[in-house]
Every structure is written in structure tokens, then in C-alpha cells.
């Protein structure tokens, strides 16, 4: 059996990129400003993370205009959803494995199920 860290994707694993995919994965589309505020990033930083995700085919960017203001909408792709689900599973597996190892080494505690 491979170690769960083998399931972690370097592109998705980065905290802010995981945040972008998490928010975009829960919505039809999400706006640049919303992501910037929710993730407490600067515009430049967010742009860099979005470029990485777009290049990997995990999100697409839609440019629009609201009145005079240009808007950028982020839409997660099917591959993005898959990568997000795989990352979450790998993280959950990692936590489970650590806990069961800890329970085995600590006498008198039962390993957690599931």
C-alpha cells in the first residue's frame, strides 16, 4: 500500500491553491475579488496562483464587465474537481493513518474506525 502523501498533488496541495479550488468547487463560478478577500491574498499573489491552476487545466478564467469594472470569474474544471477530491481524500487518509499509528503506540487507546 502506498503512503497517502503519494496522493498529494504539488499543484493542489499549496494552501492557497487548495483554498481557491475549495471555493470554486462549491460554486458555479467565483469572482476574483471574492477569492482575494476570502483567502486574504494580494491581487498579484492570487493572479500567480490562478495562472498555475489555469495552466494545469484545473480552472478556467472568464473575463466580464460589470458596468465599467472588469471582472474575472473563476470556474473549476472537471479535472479540478477530481484533483480537489483526490487531495481531500489523501489528507483524510493521512490523518487517519497518523491517528491509528498513534493509538497503536499508546497503550490503552483504541484505534479509530473508518
Amino acid at each position, binding site marked *: 500500500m502506498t503512503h497517502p*502523501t503519494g496522493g*498529494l498533488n504539488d499543484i493542489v496541495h499549496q*494552501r492557497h491553491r*487548495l*483554498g481557491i479550488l*475549495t*471555493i470554486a468547487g*462549491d*460554486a*458555479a*463560478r*467565483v*469572482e476574483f*475579488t*471574492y*477569492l482575494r478577500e*476570502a*483567502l486574504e491574498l494580494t491581487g498579484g499573489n492570487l493572479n500567480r496562483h490562478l495562472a498555475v491552476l489555469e495552466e494545469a487545466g484545473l480552472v478556467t478564467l472568464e473575463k466580464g464587465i*460589470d458596468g465599467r469594472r472588469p471582472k474575472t*470569474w473563476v470556474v473549476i474544471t472537471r479535472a479540478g474537481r477530481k484533483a480537489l477530491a483526490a487531495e*481531500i481524500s489523501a*489528507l*483524510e487518509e*493521512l*490523518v487517519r493513518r*497518523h*491517528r491509528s499509528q*498513534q493509538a497503536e503506540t499508546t497503550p490503552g487507546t483504541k484505534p479509530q474506525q473508518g
Partner: protein
Amino acid sequence: MTEFEADGLLDDVEALRRRARADRHAFRLPLLYFGLFALATAPLYVLAYTLDRPGSSSSPSGFFSSWAFGRDGWLDLIWLAGLAVGTGLTVWWYRRHGDLSGIETSTRGPVTTWTAAGLAPLIWFLSPLAGVLVWFLWPFFVRNTFGLLALAFGLIALARVERSRYLWIVTLLYTAAAVPAVVYNMENQYYRVFQLLGFSGENMPYGLLQGSPVLLPGLILLVGGLGARRRIHA
């Protein structure tokens, strides 16, 4: 990577998901609109009853009350119109909410469901084969209240995309009230309530009772809409 780091990341993911969900919820308007619309159809059922009584000259719409649609088929058309307006309103409202809050929910599922389910009575009445192949579905169409069920299907689709426990509760309560109103003569139950309140056969408001099946489902949506939190991060 340690367990603590992984655990921290999972906590972050969960917190972001909760925030995104709360920010994109916009089901208040559809609940209010459909609640009001359902309540507004009550007088139409009273009207249909009055027009159907012996001695009454005609139903309000010639063709739509003909053999093809049944005597009160016009009620199904009013439901279809109400669902169409509600669907359009929902799409516009979610777009607007998305523009204001920066996060948008997909309305494709509810829109498809409302459209398909709203057209079901038309297909039932107009397709000669429908009554033969799926004759056992007749209880759903005979009372001209199928619109309530069509609305329930769309709300279930909306609750799925909204992933809101509150909307699921409202939807399930509504569906529980709507199903008997579609497949059973709920006015009989209201008749019994009126009897308990002291109304006898002579002074029983039979006409008014005809509008009663849509009241409880409509009220549930209206209260659900009023109770929904208004939350927009501009």
C-alpha cells in the same frame, strides 16, 4: 507532512466551504415567490368549483377546458405560467446575487426540473398515449394541482445545489404537504376541521374549501422564505 498540518488544512477547507456556501445562498426569493404564487392560486380553485357547479354557464377558457385538458385544465396552464415566471425570476435573482456577492450557484438543475415537471400535465393531457401507457399516474393529474409537485421537484434540485440544511427542511416540509394535496382530496380534511369548529352541513363553506389544498404548501414556502437569512457581501 504531519497529521497536524493535514488536519489544519482540512479545517481550513471546511471553513472556506462553509463561508462560500453561506455567501452564495440565495433561495429567499424563490421561496417567497413560489409561496405567494401557491397561495394566490387558492381563489382560482374556488372559482373553478363555482364555474363547475350545475347551472353555471361555462368555464373561463374555452379550448383549455375542452376534452383535451379536462374541465379545469386552465388551472394547470396557470401553474405552468407561474412556474415559468418563477424559473426566470430564480435565474435572474441568482445571477444578480452572484454579481453582488462574487460567488454564484448553478441554477441549471432546478431550471431543468421546473421546466420538465411543469410541462408534465400538458404532455399528460395532449399525448394520446400518455393516458394509456402510464394510466396509473392519473391521480397526479386529476385534481389540477400537479404544479405543487412540479414545484417540489425543482425545490429538491435547488436544495441539492444550495447544500443548505435549512432549505432541505423547508423543501421536505413543503413536499410532505404538497404530495397529499396532489393525490388526495385535502379539502375533506379541512371539511372535518370545520366540522370540529362547529360548522354544520348547511353553513359549511364548500366553495372556499376548494382552495384549501394549496394553502398549507404555500404557507410553508412563504414562512420558509421569510425565515431565510438575507446575506450579501457586496
